[in-house]
């Protein structure tokens, strides 16, 4: 039996009098626009032909981006707004945890407000009297229940509102992002209450951005995008599809940023690239004295760079993004690739390939390629170049391709920036791209730091853990899930699973 039936529902919000925030009666009368001002002028399609059936006893999660229509859906089910077309049918009493403590009056006591709020939510006075103690106890408000509500802290206010709403004993409970109520203990109590609801076969409609909540609690999930149904079904699958879609959007955003960064002009003087590159390279005064071999490449390059531009700080760690160099070798294009072609979002442990298209107008024999990865707060995570890895350059001319393959990206989640460079062995820059490329690493584990060594935990027999319920205690499972689900490629999940393998 369906608890909630949403049948081809479309909701159009209308905006009145858009040109002024508030129309005034005076102007309406003066300009004779009274009737016009009351007519809607703009419309916004919040839900577009949405259909869904929520069976009785099911915990149903609704996810989607901001503004996708989640809350509108909830309001329609709650009966707060009516659909423009289509019908919403709800069987049984509905309680909406949307606005907690709505209708609390600040001047009067918590006790009286409980009654008012309860009546507002559809309880009779007798029912409230019966449940009053339970409500107060749940809200942990025994000491303050007779004080006026205006003296309550916001936490107390929300707790009391929550306690009333949850004690309405609804058949259908609507929840909209209200679990951030009170302290840790209270949140747990709320979760317990939800579980109890579930056990008793009540229907819960949950709108949230807390995806782990959806995975853990819901029997079914609905993903709404721009007012339309995108996917409905098993919560884990829906969440994964949603996450990969979010990543795609992030990817596009980062790609757009990179595209902008690529257009950054070559810094010393654009004409340096234009003039005969070799000549420019032969300029004696900008040739840096040879660096010791052990010197990491990026630093060397930045020193060379500081020669011809004193304003540039010596410290590479505070360096700003930019591009400079003589142009003896040009890096025309840099692409980041995952297992499925160009990408900007990667999962911890995935393969990352940095591919450079380079061009040397005239043959050069002294060259090196380098890369370094910076965390978002400017810490150099890793830097290397072909020279310090003791590759002796021999010849480069015309178009060429250079790839740097990181087999397993063992970085914790976060945003990272990339330097790429082509330079002489002594560090003199042909083409240096400083922090021009951005990629993001996703990890379902909330581990901290920069580097994520492959690891496993071993315990003696008397250390026991509960079976995995989606919590964050199990690194391997947590990490494996996204890749395995979002990528059909088996090798991807295998790569991710590896960190958990024994490494001794």
């Amino acid at each position, binding site marked *: 039996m369906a608890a909630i039936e949403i049948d081809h529902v479309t909701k159009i*919000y*209308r*905006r*009145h*009098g858009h040109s002024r925030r*508030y*129309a*005034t*009666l*005076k102007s*309406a009368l003066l300009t004779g626009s009274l009737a016009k*001002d*009351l007519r*809607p002028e703009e419309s916004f399609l919040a839900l577009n032909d949405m259909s869904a059936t929520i069976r009785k006893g099911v915990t149903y999660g609704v996810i989607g981006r901001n503004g996708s229509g989640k809350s509108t859906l909830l309001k329609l089910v*709650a*009966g*707060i*707004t*009516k659909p423009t077309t289509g019908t919403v049918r709800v069987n049984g009493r*509905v309680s*909406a945890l*949307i*606005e907690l403590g*709505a*209708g609390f*009056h600040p*001047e*009067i006591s918590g006790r*009286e407000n409980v*009654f*008012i709020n309860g*009546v*507002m*939510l559809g309880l*009779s*006075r007798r029912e409230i009297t019966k449940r009053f103690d339970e409500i107060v106890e749940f809200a942990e408000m025994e000491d303050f229940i007779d004080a*006026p509500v205006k003296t309550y802290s916001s936490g107390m206010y929300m707790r009391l509102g929550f306690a009333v709403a949850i004690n309405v004993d609804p058949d259908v409970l609507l929840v909209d992002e209200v679990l951030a109520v009170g302290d840790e203990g209270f949140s747990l109590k709320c979760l317990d209450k939800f579980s109890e609801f579930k056990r008793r076969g009540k229907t819960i409609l949950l709108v949230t951005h807390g995806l782990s909540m959806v995975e853990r609690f819901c029997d079914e999930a609905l993903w709404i995008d721009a007012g339309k149904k995108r996917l409905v079904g098993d919560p884990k699958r829906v969440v994964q599809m949603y996450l990969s879609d979010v990543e795609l959007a992030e990817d596009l955003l980062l790609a757009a940023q990179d595209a902008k960064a690529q257009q950054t002009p070559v810094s010393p003087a654009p004409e340096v690239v234009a003039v005969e590159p070799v000549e420019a390279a032969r300029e004696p005064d900008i040739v840096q004295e040879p660096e010791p071999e052990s010197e990491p490449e990026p630093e060397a390059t930045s020193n060379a760079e500081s020669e011809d531009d004193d304003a540039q700080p010596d410290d590479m760690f505070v360096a700003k993004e930019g591009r400079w160099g003589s142009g003896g070798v040009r890096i025309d294009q840099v692409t980041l690739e995952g297992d499925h072609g160009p990408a900007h979002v990667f999962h911890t442990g995935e393969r990352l390939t940095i591919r450079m298209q380079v061009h040397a107008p005239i043959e050069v024999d002294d060259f090196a390629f380098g890369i370094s990865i910076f965390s978002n707060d400017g810490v150099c995570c890793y830097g290397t170049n072909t020279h310090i890895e003791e590759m002796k350059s021999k010849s480069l001319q015309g178009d060429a391709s250079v790839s740097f393959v990181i087999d397993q990206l063992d970085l914790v989640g976060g945003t990272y920036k990339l330097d790429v460079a082509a330079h002489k062995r002594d560090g003199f820059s042909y083409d240096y791209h400083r922090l021009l490329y951005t990629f993001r690493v996703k990890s379902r584990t909330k581990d901290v730091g920069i580097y994520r060594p492959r690891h496993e935990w071993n315990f003696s027999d008397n250390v026991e853990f509960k079976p995995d319920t989606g919590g964050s205690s199990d690194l391997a499972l947590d990490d494996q899930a996204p890749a395995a689900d979002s990528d059909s490629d088996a090798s991807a999940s295998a790569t991710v699973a590896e960190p958990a393998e024994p490494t001794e």
Partner: protein
Amino acid sequence: MLSNLRQLFRYRALVQTLVVRELKARYRGSVLGYFWSFVNPLLLLLVFSFVFTEIMPRGDDVNVEPYAVFMFCGLLPWTWFSSSLMDAANALIVNGNLIKKVMFPAEILPVVSVISNMVHFLFGMPILIGFLIYNSVELHPSELVWFPVVVAVQFILTLGLAMVLSALTVHFRDIKDLLSNLLTLWMFASPIIYPMSFLSARAKGFMDLNPFAHLAISYQEIFFYPGPFGHWKWLLALAFAGSALFLVGYWLFDRLRDSFAEEV
């Protein structure tokens, strides 16, 4: 429309609760509490008595003694009327969170404004009764039975206006400001602090167009003027007009209902 009215009836428990909330909140947080119901009219009596005896004394031909009884006959209903309209004009905006976040028939809010001010009006009646006893005014049961009728007519009329105002204020925020000035004008244009006999014949003709004048006169006929209740024809007409206004007001409210949650 009919189903709307039925729904309104179904929500009577909520209306009752909200009225109680309004009244409690009004008296809470003030030292005198309930006694403000008396103190306010008494202070007004003091003001108007002073004006009419010291600043601009009435002529001898206009006899309004006892003045306190006369004035309260008009002033108490006027307070009910004007406060209801002011509250109703604000009601939807002040309670925006209810409209937006809770399943809640919005028309309850203007209804609550009118009813809670009516209760307040009834709470104020003892002061009138006190002055009636003090001046040992004789009352006739045949006149007193008209009192609930007059209250009912005033109720429906006020409610109709309240519906219109509350709905329109959501769209036109300046109604609040216009309204307070308009109500001041309206008060002085009604026979509340002066009797009808104070006016010229032409002014009386205008006064017939003022619905509140008929209400004030009705109250005065019951409590102040001797003789049988003679204003019932006007009262009957006003009852019809008030009902019509209520229906029109409710219709307008219903038409604009969907815009409330978005505009508030």
